[in-house]
């Protein structure tokens, strides 16, 4: 069951790579939060209940409700146009995403380690690199934020792989999640939207060497 959920998680990445509207991105992020909720529920069976419920709360409330709601609020408040405006055509995007997944699959199968669940690593690393790819190829600043959220989800999956042995690291990961998201979204919320009206990365090129 965990594997099914993780593979659905992987499929959401493909969907995201060809999605056109920002609202779709937000919905996918929310879906990823829900998927992570169930993965946590099934995977971390060995840790103590209080800690487990904390982690579950983080996935369901923070990842799949608070952040998506906040992002869609930002979209409305700053009147951001609904297209994601990728630099590359969707077909190329899909090919690149596929190759990211395949390369990670090859890398992970090369690792000889018996008592580890390799699907976790394939999904986590693919999500991580897909997030970086998303940041690099979308024009709007808010898609950078979404790319970062995707990266955080990937890191979260990675931390779940070893969560039973080291629950502390999962908690640290949650701390990172909340801290970085609040910092990034806070700056975005307060300032970027007000100062840069049509929020494109092209506008962030005033800091120069000459």
């Amino acid at each position, binding site marked *: 069951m965990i594997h099914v959920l993780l593979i659905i998680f992987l499929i959401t990445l493909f969907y995201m790579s060809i999605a056109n509207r920002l609202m779709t991105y937000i919905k996918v992020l929310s879906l990823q939060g829900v998927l992570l909720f169930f993965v946590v529920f099934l995977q971390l069976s060995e840790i103590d209940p209080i800690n487990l419920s904390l982690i579950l709360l983080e996935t369901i409330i923070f990842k799949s409700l608070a952040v998506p709601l906040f992002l869609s609020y930002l979209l409305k408040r700053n009147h951001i146009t609904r297209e994601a405006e990728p630099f590359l055509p969707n077909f190329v995007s899909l090919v690149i995403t596929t190759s990211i997944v395949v390369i990670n699959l090859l890398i992970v199968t090369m690792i000889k380690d018996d008592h580890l669940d390799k699907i976790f690593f394939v999904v986590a690393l693919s999500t991580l690199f897909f997030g970086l790819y998303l940041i690099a190829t979308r024009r709007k600043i808010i898609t950078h934020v979404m790319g970062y959220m995707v990266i955080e989800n990937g890191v979260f999956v990675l931390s779940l792989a*070893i969560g039973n042995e080291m629950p502390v690291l999962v908690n*640290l990961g949650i701390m990172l999640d909340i801290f970085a998201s609040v910092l990034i979204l806070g700056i975005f919320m307060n300032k970027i939207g007000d100062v840069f009206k049509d929020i494109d990365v092209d506008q962030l090129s005033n*800091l120069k060497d000459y």
Partner: protein
Amino acid sequence: MVILYLLGSFLLILSLFFSRSKYFVYGLLGVFLVLQCVFTMYAFQHGGNTEATYFTYDPLGLILLVTLTIVAIPAAIHSYIYIESHQESPRSRSIYLTALILLITSIGAAYLSNHIAVTWIFTEVTTLSASALIYHHRNKLALEGTWKYVFICAISITFIFIGILFLSLSLQHAGSDNLSYANLLQKSNELNPVWLQMAFLFIFTGFTAKLGLVPMFTAGIDAKDTAPAPAGALFSTVLMNLGFIGIFRFYLVIANTPLLHWAKLVVGTAAFLSLFVATVYMLKVKNIKRMFAYSGIEHMGLVMLGVVAGGIGYYAAILHVVLHAFVKSSLFFQYNQLYRVFQSKSIQHIGNYFKYNPTGAIVLLLGFFSSAAMPPSGLFVSEFLIFRSIFATGQIALLVAVLLLLTMIIWAFGKNIFQVLFVPTEHFEEREIPSTSGWESLTQYILLALAVYVGFNPPAALVEMIQHSVSLFPH
């Protein structure tokens, strides 16, 4: 004591954040400096002790903590001058000082932590406080710098976390789950090499955002450019040293495994590329603050080359980060006086500085000589030792390439500095130049003199501490 220090700083931060009275705020800043000095002295006297499980007063941490305290005092003085000359609102003054104290405290705690996750947490805190400092001016440029800095640092902090996850996997093979540096060192032979390689790649990449090496150096440059100069001085010295200590402690672990040669290749490539990038930008940069920042990248590239070369290079690298902190901070402290005269960062609009403020001009001149590592600069000693260590490894081609790049850097740096000091500029119209008291340059002279003194006549305690901290490297 470390708990007291953190608690005391926390209380000071809280009361600073909410107070608006001028004398009270500066009083609190003074109290913090006293606390910082007392803590440093206490740590120095209790070298080797472990407190609160996660903090050890080990030699390397102590050396950098002393450096931090020495740089923090002039940073506070210049922050005072900066705020008073800009007629800041009480609120922005409070936020600035709060962020400054938070930055210094978290850097200090990160130096002393003996556990990789604790170092990571305090690195996060430095990102938070640094972003508040970068955003101080609250204009479009500051916002752009802050956004870039926060975003790149968030990604690099995530990378460090991924590295820690891989490290814990690697450690599971050794049948342990204690991520303290001492335990990692002890178990270094049993770590799983594949996971360790992944961990090193991610942790190294993550810390380069603080250290200022390729690939994550860009955010730091923008930060040093847009932040007020006293904060920029901290970013380009003690915050870079935080990146150094993060990489160095983990490199020490990996140096005791069969992966040493591979790690040398990774770090060496990044260091050489940083030197190359620094050269390219130094040749075309026209913004004097960014030029200082790129010069920092060059120095950190040299430091990491020293670490990679090994032998005397370990010693030289640590000496170099200390001396670089003194020299580079003095250049940044001087910058505000320069700006007050010319009201511009662009070298095209600055010229003939000797005419307007000879005391400050001499600081720039001496700072240039020191930074270019010409004798009698203290950096000459450490750079010479780094070159010697590279020579000892037999990498003559690398040495020649590095020296060529350095020649270009010194030429570009010198050309720009001499333009600033001696060549009259057409764009500058003579007006009422605000007079600058020579006393404002005093701290810079002290720092530069300290760099010379420590370089040529290092105190026995310092030499002993550096040797102790590199004694765990395989010979």
